[in-house]
């Protein structure tokens, strides 16, 4: 039980939490705008990882530099995942805009299963090795026993994505339109906002962050298969609920808390119960704060 061990677990939790945050953002943003738990979101993350794998494999054949491969793989994975996120919304959710909320939820679950099986058929059911895309930085060598270059890249990327996203939502016209749409869709339309357009943008932004997460974690863990989206999706969903679904700072905080919980419990108690601890913690938080850590419970007017 040394101090070093604590630091190691802390940073490990931070890395995990960062990945969860990149995925959880998509859940919470979509929920904020159309009050839908987009169960297909984990699959978008998985598709991002697969795209990166294919691109990286092809580019490596040409003997390109590792960093070039990484950047191209991330960019193309983001583009591809955005296209999927956009299309999923148009096909599975938009036609159901006025339907009861349960119908849309079923549609989301259907889309999730469809995408999983589509990748299963198009690719394979086996685990595929994922190349190590993130290089070991030389300048980081002296500190790499504390935190590896990979983990550092993951954390740094997450921080940059968060800052960009905060800027987008707080200060740009699109961001204002997103907030307005989340607060009152009819009124947003009446002040001239194309609500469908804003919903599409929300799906695209969420898919982009999920794809970035997908590439980073796949490169970190070193293998992927068609099923990785499911468990990562559930964890990120838990993180979003933990933080207060619909709230962006909440999603980040929830993700970090979840990452640390898993990391410390597995480190100090047992790694066999990683998921058990994560979900126990969720239950515990929800007993005392039903709307999540940063969520505000609203009294329904009756």
């Amino acid at each position: 039980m040394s101090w070093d061990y604590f630091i190691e677990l802390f940073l490990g939790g931070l890395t995990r939490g960062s990945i969860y945050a990149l995925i959880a953002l998509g859940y919470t943003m979509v929920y904020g705008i159309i009050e839908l738990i987009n169960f297909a979101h984990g699959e978008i993350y998985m598709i991002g990882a697969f795209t990166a794998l294919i691109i990286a494999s092809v580019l490596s054949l040409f003997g390109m530099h590792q960093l070039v491969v990484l950047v191209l793989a991330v960019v193309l994975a983001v583009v591809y995942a955005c296209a999927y996120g956009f299309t999923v919304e148009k096909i599975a959710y938009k036609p159901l805009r006025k339907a009861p909320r349960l119908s849309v939820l079923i549609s989301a679950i259907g889309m999730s299963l469809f995408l999983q099986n589509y990748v299963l058929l198009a690719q394979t059911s086996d685990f595929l090795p994922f190349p190590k895309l993130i290089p070991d930085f030389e300048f980081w060598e002296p500190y790499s026993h504390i935190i590896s270059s990979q983990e550092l890249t993951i954390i740094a990327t997450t921080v940059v994505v968060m800052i960009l996203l905060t800027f987008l939502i707080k200060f740009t016209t699109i961001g204002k339109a997103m907030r307005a749409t989340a607060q009152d869709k009819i009124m947003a339309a009446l002040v001239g906002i194309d609500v469908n357009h804003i919903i599409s943008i929300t799906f695209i932004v969420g898919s982009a962050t999920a794809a970035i997460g997908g590439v980073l974690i796949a490169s970190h863990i070193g293998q992927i298969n068609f099923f990785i989206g499911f468990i990562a999706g559930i964890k990120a969903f838990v993180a979003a609920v933990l933080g207060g679904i619909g709230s962006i700072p909440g999603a980040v905080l929830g993700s970090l808390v979840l990452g640390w919980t898993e990391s410390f419990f597995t480190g100090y108690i047992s790694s066999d119960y990683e998921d058990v601890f994560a979900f126990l913690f969720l239950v515990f938080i929800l007993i005392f704060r039903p709307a999540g850590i940063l969520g505000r419970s609203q009294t329904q007017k009756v």
Partner: protein
Amino acid sequence: MEPILAVKNLSMNFGGLRALDRLDLDVNQGEIVALIGPNGAGKTTFFNCITGIYTPTEGDILITPPRNSVQRINGLKPNTITELGMARTFQNIRLFPKMTVLENVMIGRHCRLSAGILGAVFQGKKVRKEEERAVTDSYAVLEKIGLAQFVNDLAMNLPYGAQRRLEIARALATEPFLLLLDEPAAGMNPQETQELNELIVRIRDTEKISILLIEHDMKLVMSLSDRIFVMDYGKKIAQGAPREIKSNPVVIKAYLGEEFHA
């Protein structure tokens, strides 16, 4: 000259219920027109039809924006209609409560900006210029409406009368040629109502924006309107100048019930 809004033979059915029944109404450039009628007459349904929230079952809604030709707007989306130049407020306040006063008005400017998602992300020079203009323009609107002192407050923290005026400011920011006000004086005290009266006249006179309003405050309606339309059970039962409406027996009957014999 063409009326800027001409509604012809408009009907709206909800299942078996006919909420609007072959309604005709028109607004000319520079007019303040009032739409009155007992509760449940279909006034708000009418607003919802002409702003694109409902698609009417039958009839035509024609608009003639300044320097533009006649256009039929049945079934267009609300945001398209706003872009064409009709803005509205609601009976119950519908501001964006968790945004600041300035942001609420800037949202109204949204439909007059050209930047898309890429512009927003990469913040080109043109986009930044446009954003700055939007801030100045929005602030100017707030000053006109007398809300400049609240500029950075959250909309939900404003006093009631100010919230009502902010709704009007937000609608004005979309640069309409016709402003639709749904019970703007609801819940206001006599002094606030008087200020509202002056504000509406000022909007018409200085901004050259025509106004169609739904209102229950008869004193306000009579002093403000050039013409009045009266509805009951989804039908138009009278139209004319305030003086004519005041003494119209059909109108009096609709308001006071069958048993009343004047």
